[in-house]
């Protein structure tokens, strides 16, 4: 069977003008503004089967938006080709072409037609759209009187009712309240089961993890990784931190001077003897091997665990000026940190600093660190997992549904 989406050798070049083009200047041959070429996407190959759910991750400016625009047919590739079977519905930002003065009803028609439906097709879906958006009482009210939540609900509702072959979703899962988000997820699951291919761009790793069994990492316009989501997310974080490392050339940390003298030659996270990237709840052991390049007496080791957004989850260090042993040039040692991952769902990064005994000289700073993920538990937020339980009249209220798009849902009871 032919692929639902096939991109072959796709590249997109933009001209970066050093200044705004002006009519008069461009008519004078010698005064034309100089322009620099900029490839937003290059040598890009991607294939999606019908019913695939793909997450696209990468930092800002990596080419994600260009990729979506290309799939939506809004912009033309400079080289290569994009082939798509059937209709594409972009959900890039909900409410495309909404007119504030017009009623919800009129806007459903405008929006639906822009997304490629005929009037008859919208007539047939109208009830379902309004019902899904929960706006039956307000459908003849001008949308300028809508709250932002109502506005987005209507836009989302139209887009998911267009029965597209390919649905492009860009950061819209933050629509409305939690209950509506769940409804959106269920709807996406339904349309995926009906054979729609879904492409999701998100900066929210939990959303990508929840929805997509497969993800790609885009970096500097190139396809950096294509495969399972966990690996993609880990890859993405490694890249982020590696780039942060490149940028941090000033090696002055507080009043500490970076002197060098130690190197991390090996590091890994374990549960028991098993190397991990995703925590299961068992105690985690971080092991690293350090080599000293000069004689060091009683070095100090410090570890920091931070979440995605930089929140400090935990830090621990060996006591200052605690005598333990001396190392000669060329000596190696094994350092181990064992901890209970009582953490909320999310990505964490464990970084290490090795300093001299009194903490003045910074021998080594592993800012890239090691990444691990703690699977998110529904309805919980925060860096700490305090194992809270809610009871009403003595009855525990526990989630009984699951929403993973890549699998069929079952009544997995998580308690």
């Amino acid at each position, binding site marked *: 069977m032919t692929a639902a989406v096939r991109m072959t050798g796709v590249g997109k070049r933009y001209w970066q003008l050093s200044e705004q083009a002006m009519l008069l200047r461009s008519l004078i041959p010698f005064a034309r503004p100089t322009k620099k070429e900029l490839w937003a996407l290059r040598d890009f190959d991607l294939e999606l089967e019908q019913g695939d759910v793909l997450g696209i991750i990468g930092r800002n400016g990596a080419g994600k938006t260009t990729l979506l625009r290309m799939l939506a047919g809004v912009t033309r590739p400079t080289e290569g080709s994009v082939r798509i079977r*059937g209709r594409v519905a972009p959900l890039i930002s909900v409410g495309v072409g909404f007119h504030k003065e017009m009623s919800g009803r009129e806007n459903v028609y405008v929006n639906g037609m822009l997304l490629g439906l*005929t009037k008859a097709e919208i007539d047939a879906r109208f009830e379902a759209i309004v019902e899904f958006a929960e706006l039956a009482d307000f459908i003849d009210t001008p949308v300028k009187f809508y709250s932002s939540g109502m506005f987005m609900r209507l836009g989302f509702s139209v887009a998911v009712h267009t029965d597209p072959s390919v649905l492009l979703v860009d950061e819209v899962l933050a629509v409305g309240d939690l209950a509506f988000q769940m409804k959106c997820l269920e709807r996406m699951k339904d349309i995926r089961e009906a054979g729609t291919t879904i492409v999701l761009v998100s900066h929210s790793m939990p959303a990508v993890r929840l929805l997509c069994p497969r993800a790609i990492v885009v970096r500097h316009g190139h396809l950096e990784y294509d495969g399972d989501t966990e690996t993609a997310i880990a890859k993405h974080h490694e890249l982020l931190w590696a780039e942060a490392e490149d940028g941090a050339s000033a090696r002055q940390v507080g009043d500490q001077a970076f002197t060098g003298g130690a190197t991390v030659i090996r590091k890994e996270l374990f549960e028991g003897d098993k190397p991990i990237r995703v925590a299961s709840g068992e105690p985690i052991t971080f092991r690293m091997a350090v080599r000293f390049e000069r004689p060091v007496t009683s070095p100090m080791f410090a570890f920091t665990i931070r979440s995605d957004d930089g929140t400090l989850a935990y830090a621990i260090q060996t006591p200052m000026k605690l005598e333990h042993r001396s190392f000669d040039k060329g000596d190696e040692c094994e350092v181990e940190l064992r901890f209970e991952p009582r953490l909320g769902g999310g990505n964490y990064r464990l970084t290490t600093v090795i300093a001299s005994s009194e903490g003045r000289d910074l021998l080594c700073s592993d800012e890239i660190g090691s990444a691990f993920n703690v699977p998110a538990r529904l309805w919980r937020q925060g860096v700490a997992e305090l194992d809270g339980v809610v009871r009403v009249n003595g009855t525990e209220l526990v989630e009984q549904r699951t929403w993973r798009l890549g699998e069929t849902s079952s009544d997995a009871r998580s308690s």
Partner: protein
Amino acid sequence: MAETVAGAGTDGVATTAAGAVEHVIDSRPETRREWLRSMWNHRSVLSMLARADFHVRYKRAALGVAWAVAVPVIQAGVLAFVFSRVIRVQSTANFGAYVLGGVLAWSYFSGTIATGATAIVDGSGLTDKVWFPRALLSVVPAIANMVGLSVSFAVIVVAMPILGADYSIRLLLIPLGILLLVSFTASLALVLSALHVYFRDVKFLVQAALLVWFYVTPIAYPKGLLKSLSSVIDFNPMTGIVSMFQVAVAGPQPHWGRAVGISVAFTLVLMAVALETHRRHDRLFVDLL
């Protein structure tokens, strides 16, 4: 082989995932044939956008579409008064009807060009999400303003006896004039809106040019006033277009047929240029918005 693309296929073809048409987008622009077909397939989007545009414009005004008539009528009244009473232009018998006919056509033209020329940039919020030929955006004002234009001329025809003008077979020129005026205006809006994407100066150049253009078109004064220059002014495409309306409501004027011929030729060339420009540049606009 290369189907017109993605986005909105309003052709009513069932596009459920199985057995759907494959769309190919690569660096080549569509062929002329594909381009015309995709414009045709999106005609319902055009009419819907035009309706929305019209609706939004007049919805909150108590007098609604009456303003589309009232504003040019006031303008025509002032011009007719100034040119016939103050400057004392030697005029034909129905100078009032003559000025009114010209001004109504002109106000459609200038109002449409002013919004049409910036339509692609102004509509970027729509077109960077979902694809349809962006040329439609530039044509929307030309279509939406047709309502006002038609109402204006209906009113003028009813009011002709008050202005002392007689009904004649020449009134049949009005629908033809509307056809030519709308075609010319839409074509010019298409070309200008494409230019405006690349050069934002266009917006201001258009405003300035419209001011001058009004006075080099015989609207507020009879064409005969220009004497030897009147044949030069025939090469202004708006001369022929407004003359159709003036002739319809106020009687014949010297060699207006030639002016109309020039306008028709001009319109056809401009239309071809407009379609070709948009065919080649359509999917590149978004990179500059």
